[in-house]
């Protein structure tokens, strides 16, 4: 069964803290994505990748780094977290000519 698994599901950190969000897909998809979702903005693309070692910049990349270590694993890094990064984060994966399949999300609070 196709799956995208995110961890942790909830995270609380303080301003200036270091956070890593993890995503693993078992779908053999080439493409993986990180989005953030905020009320009134829908889903906004942070970074995406089309394979291990590849990284493409999305529409709201400031303050975020990402790394695709394998075809299955995509990480989102917040090295100096700020309250403006409090949000609901979604990871997704897609194959060729396929719409993305989403994970269940990670809720991040930066105090």
């Amino acid at each position, binding site marked *: 069964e196709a799956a*995208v698994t995110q961890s942790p599901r909830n995270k609380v950190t303080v301003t200036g803290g270091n956070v890593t969000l993890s995503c693993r897909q078992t779908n053999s998809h080439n*493409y993986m*994505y990180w*989005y953030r979702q905020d009320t*009134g*903005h*829908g*889903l*906004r*693309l942070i970074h*995406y990748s*089309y394979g291990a070692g590849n990284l*493409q910049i*999305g*529409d709201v990349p400031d303050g975020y780094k990402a790394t695709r270590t394998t075809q299955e694993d995509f990480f989102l890094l917040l090295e100096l977290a700020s309250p403006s990064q409090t949000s609901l984060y*979604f990871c*997704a994966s*897609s194959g060729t*000519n396929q*719409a*993305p*399949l*989403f*994970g*269940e*999300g990670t809720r991040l609070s930066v105090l």
Partner: protein
Amino acid sequence: QQQVRQSPQSLTVWEGETAILNCSYEDSTFNYFPWYQQFPGEGPALLISISSVSDKKEDGRFTIFFNKREKKLSLHITDSQPGDSATYFCAPFNTGNYKYVFGAGTRLKVIA
């Protein structure tokens, strides 16, 4: 730059009515148009999609109407049910670059 616009922002209909959700876009290279359905606490799930070579796609109570010339599409939900209450996103893209851009969504509420 707002590439994808959805309207209305929220919509309330009675059970059994037809809900109409609208989406417009600017990028003429978009050639694939999925709609996602999202329930609270869950990730978005693909509901129905259409390619730019078609003007209509039907799947049960859900129908997409697509107007390529005007860069507009709409999602019609007939015989709306309370279980359809969710947020719906239009997410057009170009199969050449796989950069998915989502609209801000339409929050649908169906009253029994």
